[in-house]
């Protein structure tokens, strides 16, 4: 399964959907962070500026800095992105508890913006299954 949110041909349209989502707009308010999502060996940087996502950078992002990172194997993300995910892959927090995802970096920032992050990931799932 190709993971859409790291596909350079799709990231621009995904950014548009995110920034127009009513819940995401509330959840991401005040957020200015760079979030790293790793899908297996692929690193993707999502840039938030004042509550708006300005870029999802999935090419040549290996040297880009980030505030916090969520890492998972390709298999873990494929399970996460299923319409009805299996247990322990349905949410990032539960997935972290069970060892399927790892959170690193500035975890206080991650949790202070957790609603924005989780809504973003839910939209990734919705778009993956459209």
């Amino acid at each position, binding site marked *: 399964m190709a993971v859409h949110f790291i596909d350079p041909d799709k990231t621009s349209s995904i950014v548009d959907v995110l920034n127009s989502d009513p819940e995401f707009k509330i959840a991401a308010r005040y957020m200015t962070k760079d979030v790293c999502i790793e899908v297996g060996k692929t690193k993707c940087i999502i840039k938030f500026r004042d509550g708006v996502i300005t870029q999802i950078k999935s090419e040549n992002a290996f040297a880009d800095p980030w505030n916090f990172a969520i890492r998972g194997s390709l298999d873990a993300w494929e399970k996460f992105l299923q319409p009805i995910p299996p247990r*322990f892959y349905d949410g990032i927090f*539960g997935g972290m*508890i069970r060892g399927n995802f790892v959170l690193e970096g500035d975890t206080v920032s991650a949790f202070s913006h957790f609603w924005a*992050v989780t809504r973003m990931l839910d939209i990734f799932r919705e778009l993956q299954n459209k």
Partner: protein
Amino acid sequence: MAKFDPIEGRFVYLTIQGVKYRVYYEESGQGIPIICQHSAGSQGLEWRHMLTDPEIISKYHVIVADLPYHGRSLPPESVQWWKEEYKLTKSFFIDFQIELSRALGLVKPVYIGTAAGGFLALNLALEHPSEFRAVIGVEAAKHAGTATLDTFDHPYIGNDYKRANAMYFSAPANPEKYRRAITWVSMLAAPPVTKGDMNYYFIEHDLTEKTQQIDTSRCVVYLLTGEYDPTSTVEDTMELAKEVKGSKFTEMKGMSHAGMAENPVLFKKYLMPILNEIASK
């Protein structure tokens, strides 16, 4: 004509460990009394569907209280509670159930609790088997894993964290209206309370080497655990059930951490056989 729920709410004064508390509780129905205990960082609203289900309240007297510091049960007036960190202790949690039952004149009620309340079901069966005719532990385990509690009460982490976290402690296929309500109720808890309740959930609750002391011939133990719960897993509860001889375990497919709130219709399908069995004895 206005529509009313059959719930009646009032306050009762309970003295627990020498301190007087004004405790809010709701009740409905008549028959075998059932005390319903909410989870950590929550309040009695979790059990609102149970309080209004016509079939249940036609046979059972459902009682739902807000623990002190939760919901409408304010901190006690006789204590300078703001000078110490709030922590829910096992002994307080147990004593609260006993005092509530006695104050309301309940005769051998059924106890049902979820998550932290589910853990407590086992503590009650162990320490007060004669007080309850049966306990139902929802999402119960011998002990929880480890967790960082500070995220629940941190000056830089607001209520958004709790709502985002709570969303995924309900299973993904359950109705969104109920899942979203869980996130709202989670935000109603004061941040120190959510963290303080975790003191019982993650630290004080530990039934290691105590499970075999639970006598299910004196107090019947039922266990219900949701397929998706990442903290008290189905496997955790199966291990518990194996050690508590005579206990009865059922996995709730398609459910997670707060079954009665995330999908009350499905939860009732798992609960009714248990209640019917209790009523038949």
